[in-house]
């Protein structure tokens, strides 16, 4: 703790301007907010499945800078993404585009849900027709149950 205080004191000497507000990495917070939103949907191409928002790899940093410049140049989100797709291919998009090769991907789960519901209700209807209510107990059944009950008590 003592050593730590010494370090602290030394730091104070070096930096007379204590408790200064840290500078954001980006000059413009509005641009930064959009950058994070876009970067989270872009894949860092040299990483093991990380977005360029999360990764600290050089390529990710470069791409973040690039996207930042594009935003500053007044491009829309769509234009930024199109630019990156033109350069790196669709692989860079974490949200696949909606087009013929990905129809099955996007619609699949909802078709599956529909099929599930239809199957469920047709099964339930068929089932209720097939299953008979249990027949009423016969005298023999009643005796058997009595024996079983007595036995489990003993």
């Amino acid at each position, binding site marked *: 703790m003592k050593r*730590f205080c010494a*370090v602290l004191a030394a*730091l104070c000497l070096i*930096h007379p301007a*204590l*408790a*200064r*507000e*840290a*500078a*954001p*990495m980006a000059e413009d917070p509005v641009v930064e907010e959009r950058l*994070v939103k876009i970067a*989270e*949907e872009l*894949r860092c191409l040299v990483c*093991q*499945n*990380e*977005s360029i*928002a*999360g990764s*600290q790899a050089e390529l990710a940093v470069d791409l973040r800078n690039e996207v930042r410049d594009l935003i500053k140049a007044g491009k829309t989100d769509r234009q930024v993404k199109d630019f990156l797709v033109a350069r790196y*291919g*669709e*692989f*860079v*998009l*974490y*949200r*696949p585009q909606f087009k013929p*090769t*990905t129809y*099955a*991907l*996007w619609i*699949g*789960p909802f078709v*599956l*849900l529909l099929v*599930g*519901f239809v*199957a*469920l209700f047709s099964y*339930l209807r068929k*089932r*209720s027709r*097939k*299953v*008979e*209510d*249990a027949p009423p107990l016969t005298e*023999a*059944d009643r*005796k*058997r149950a009595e*024996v*079983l009950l007595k*036995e*489990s008590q003993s």
Partner: protein
Amino acid sequence: MIPELGHFALILSLCVALAAGILPLVGAYRNQAQWIAFARPATSAIFVLILVSYACLTWAFYVDDFSVAYVAGHSNSQMPTIFRLSAVWGGHEGSLLLWALMLAGWAIAVATFSRQLPDAMVARVLGVMGLVMVGLLAFTLFTSNPFERLMPAPAEGRSLNPLLQDFGLLYHPPLLYMGYVGLSVAFAFAIAALLAGQLDAAWARWSRPWTIAAWAFLTLGNSLGSWWAYYELGWGGWWFWDPVENASFMPWLLATALIHSLAVTEKRGSFKNWTVLLAIAAFSLTLLGTFLVRSGVLTSVHAFATDPGRGMFILIFLTFVIGSSLLLFAIRAPKVGLGGRFALVSRETLLLLNNVLLVVACGAVFLGTIYPLLIDALGMGKISVGPPYFNAVFIPLMLPVLALVALGPTMRWKQSDLKADLLKLWPAAVVGVAVGVATPLLASQWHSYAALLMALVGWIVAAIVLQTYDRLKAGKPTASWWGMQLAHFGLAVFVVGATMISVYDEERDVRMEPGDTVAVGGHVFKFLGVRAADGPNFSSLVGSFEVSKEGQPLSMLYPEKRDYGPGHMPMTEAAIDGRFTYDLYVSLGEPLTADKEGGPWAVRVYYKPFAFWIWGGCLFMALGGFIAMADRRYRLKLKPRPAAVAVGAAA
């Protein structure tokens, strides 16, 4: 010498497993008591042999025997002992051995705790587990032998990936494998019941505690893995929809469906076929997950040493398992009775609905995971399917599940009255709406998504309180009832964490010089500087941050940047001040000038509300599972019933 001993024990265990997989099954089929009796001792023998083998490999790690290729590839003499010992499962070959050990352990547990089951049934279950063991051991021995020697032996090993040199490695893989392997017990019970043609409520009761145990382990494994990623990867994410995460999440979804449908099968004797199919599917998905992870078809943060030969082996094994079990199912299923009658409005229907939703959700995750591979294999280009897709598809499917969770325990079996049920729960609905409206207002930022999810949380928790009150009036509830409610409560807690963190987290990406401050989430972080420090096998730069709230110092945080030497990426060790309702999270980025210790750094500071609730909720779920399986009705002995047989014969 010792590695050879381990290798030999492993070969022996394969031989015993072959016998244990065949003789008891044949014995049970031909009703030969001696062959049936072979199941238990054989299971013990397999366990001992694999334990010896595992101990030998651990020993090789302990004494730094780098003449063993696997040790040389995953350990070095500088690593702390605890990480050298857990490095045994830090790679592909060793983790398979751990897997085999666990499978043998589950088999022993089945043999020990199933004394109340008929011997023939136990023999069938152990026989099927023996066959699974044969597949696993053959895979290990023929494609992934951990005991292979390296000539000449290197003087020093290649260190384990620094990401793995963490306590997470101690608990995450073993728990996850426990869950994976546990599902093979549920599978073995299902196959055994099909073989015996005895698919009844008794079978459901026997396999239920085992399935719940597997599910609880899967819950722990997945959630603690997520916690590990949260604090280790350094950017504060906790679930990435990474294909490998999906590979263990899909079995969890199906296992969740399975424990619900088993409940119906046990209580009401219905959905037997469906339950068996789910058990088969859940186990098949664990094999498929293994294939995806170990064959090299995926790129992910969980990269294993991969090899197409291994992929081929698993694929053949998977085909065999699915093919033979479905064939067996097709032969036996038509003879299975339908069980008791129930009305459209009943707990049975509700649980079926739960099953449809969970299975569809699993299908959606499956589709997203497999789609890029499929498109690539068909030569239609390379695409990525990432978090934006999964969030868009998965969350809407989970909303009705959350809405129904509260309703399930109120509804009656056989026939329920929806109007009366809802009338019972109206206070819960009021609480739900109140919580849903209050949360975004208190957080001073309206967010409809957060409002909806928090409303569902309020609805679930209030319903649990009402149901508990009602249930206590009727007498002491069973352990499995408490377990269910605790697990449902855990789900609600989890949803709070997941919602709050994704909607209301705050993040600042700043350039800080020593002395600078940054405010996030009402807290001020002051950067005091960076100093150099040395770990056992790395050098580190440790930053110091003083956190204060309203001028009062709160805590100190020391995030690190670690260098594990050439060949490894520098590691970011985040520092977290974890509190009940929020986490403060600091991670060091890069030094911005050459002066690392006195100069400015890129720093990321996060405020993560309710972060701990994500994993806390999962712990409740798992705990609920363990409580439920302790229910005494699972341990009741079947009494011999000569009298009943006599009366039955007379009638």
